[in-house]
């Protein structure tokens, strides 16, 4: 494959995650330190080896529970000397921190980059703090580029918009609510084998249909669950990764394209930006969708997981309903084990980085009871609407 695609010179060498609380009694900074130190030790490094830090979205909103800790505070807390650091919301979705870290190493700006994502939406809710999403949108007038076209119509959460994607998917392709339910049921089944998952109670199809309707056709069990957690990985120059603790996990390809307007009602309503990112990713590798052993796909809302299956070419366009029918293809022992730690629907809304952590856990064979059989290639994807990013990971 073309040597222009320099992400292949970068590998994941360590992973870490704090406790996943609902809520956690630990502070946002403490959770972040827990995850960071675990990831750095897991790589066989020490903090002084880290010379780059990236996060998405970083401290984007004045300490908001959506992202209370950014790269600058982590660098300061850990006493790092960095040649590269970046955070910020305007990028290709929740995997953008990984992509920025990969590009920093590939371009020679850094050797070992810590990438992390901290979120404290659970304790924020339970404390009744003012910074929760809805209250943040309750200012006098909305001038946000995206939200100003939503809040005047009482669209205060993107659940309404993803619900419209789901309704159109059902109308256009005949996708059924029972098929959609398989995302929630599968992730719950997987969560039961993950000691850190925040909801592990068994779920039946009847339970799914008894769950509260939020915005037709999406129910509460189609929406991810808030948690307090920090997740981190260490990215290393591949030639420096060989002597570290684990076999390096190569960044085979990254996809970050957006070929559509950045508005949730202006994008392709049945595809979103997912094929943009996915096609860009597949163009950077000789591997094909059929080579993927496990998929860790964004499930902020269940319909987005279905659309990622299609966008990545893991099933035909419009065919995700048939693909997940009955749940056997996406089960741990199926053709394409999906969201093997319980995803965000049951594992907890670690928001993007959890997929990368789980992909590495599986590739390294550290999945315990939920370990799938001998995976070599994993795809991670996150985002919905106009935001989409994907990563293809290969165990060397």
């Amino acid at each position, binding site marked *: 494959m073309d040597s222009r695609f320099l992400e292949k010179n970068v590998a994941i060498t360590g992973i870490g995650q704090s406790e996943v609380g609902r809520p956690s009694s630990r502070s946002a900074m403490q959770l972040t330190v827990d995850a960071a130190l675990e990831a750095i030790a897991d790589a066989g490094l020490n903090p002084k080896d880290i010379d780059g830090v990236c996060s998405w979205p970083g401290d984007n909103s004045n300490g908001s529970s959506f992202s209370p800790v950014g790269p600058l505070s982590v660098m300061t807390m850990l006493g790092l000397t960095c040649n590269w650091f970046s955070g910020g919301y305007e990028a290709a979705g929740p995997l953008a921190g990984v992509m920025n870290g990969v590009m920093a190493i590939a371009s020679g700006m850094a050797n070992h980059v810590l990438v992390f994502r901290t979120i404290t939406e659970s304790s924020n809710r339970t404390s009744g703090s003012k910074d929760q999403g809805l209250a943040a949108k309750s200012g006098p*007038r909305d001038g946000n580029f995206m939200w100003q076209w939503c809040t005047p119509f009482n669209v205060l959460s993107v659940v309404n918009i993803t619900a*419209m994607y789901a309704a159109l998917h059902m109308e256009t392709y005949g996708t059924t609510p029972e098929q959609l339910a398989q995302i929630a049921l599968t992730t719950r089944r997987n969560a039961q084998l993950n000691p850190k998952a925040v909801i592990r109670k068994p779920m039946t199809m009847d339970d799914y249909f008894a769950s509260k309707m939020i915005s037709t056709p999406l129910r509460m069990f189609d929406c991810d669950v808030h948690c307090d957690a920090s997740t981190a990985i260490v990215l290393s120059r591949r030639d420096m990764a060989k002597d570290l603790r684990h076999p390096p996990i190569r960044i085979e390809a990254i996809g970050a394209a957006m070929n559509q307007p950045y508005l949730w009602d202006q994008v392709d309503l049945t595809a979103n930006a997912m094929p943009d990112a996915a096609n860009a990713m597949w163009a950077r590798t000789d591997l094909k969708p059929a080579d993927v052993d496990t998929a860790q796909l964004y499930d902020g809302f269940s319909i987005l997981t279905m659309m990622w299956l299609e966008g990545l070419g893991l099933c035909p366009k419009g065919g995700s309903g048939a693909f997940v029918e009955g749940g056997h293809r996406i089960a741990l022992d199926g053709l394409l084990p999906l969201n093997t730690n319980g995803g965000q629907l049951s594992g907890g809304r670690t928001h993007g980085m959890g997929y990368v952590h789980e992909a590495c856990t599986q590739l390294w064979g550290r999945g315990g009871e939920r370990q799938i059989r001998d995976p070599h290639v994993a795809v991670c994807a996150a985002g919905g609407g106009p935001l989409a990013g994907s990563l293809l990971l290969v165990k060397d």
Partner: protein
Amino acid sequence: MRKLPLLSAETRQFWTGGEFGELRMHRCEDCSRFFHPPAPICRYCSSLNVTPTPVSGRGRVVTFTINHQAWTPEVSDPYVVAIVELEEQAGLRFLSNVVNCPPDAVEIGMPVTVVFENVEDVWVPLFERAA
């Protein structure tokens, strides 16, 4: 109860045309295409010759959802959020509400017409089932 948008040089005509009974969408005078959201440049041909232009206000429901979650105490009854495509141009669409009918009467493909709800200096363009 609605949160109101900040009116900017680009968005003011969209949000206030209702005072004159008009839904105004930005249109490129050079390539004749409408585009949304409003901007000082045509995103199709890069022309700066763009003008807020009245449209018929007629369209159809591309997709919709009935919101059941009470996000705020002021808005607790189920309401319809829809994406409406205007008849002037394929893909010319925006998110709005369908009002003046029971939520379960709304269907994908349903023809709708614009109605305006005036709050302060904003005329929010909503849609109702076409007669």
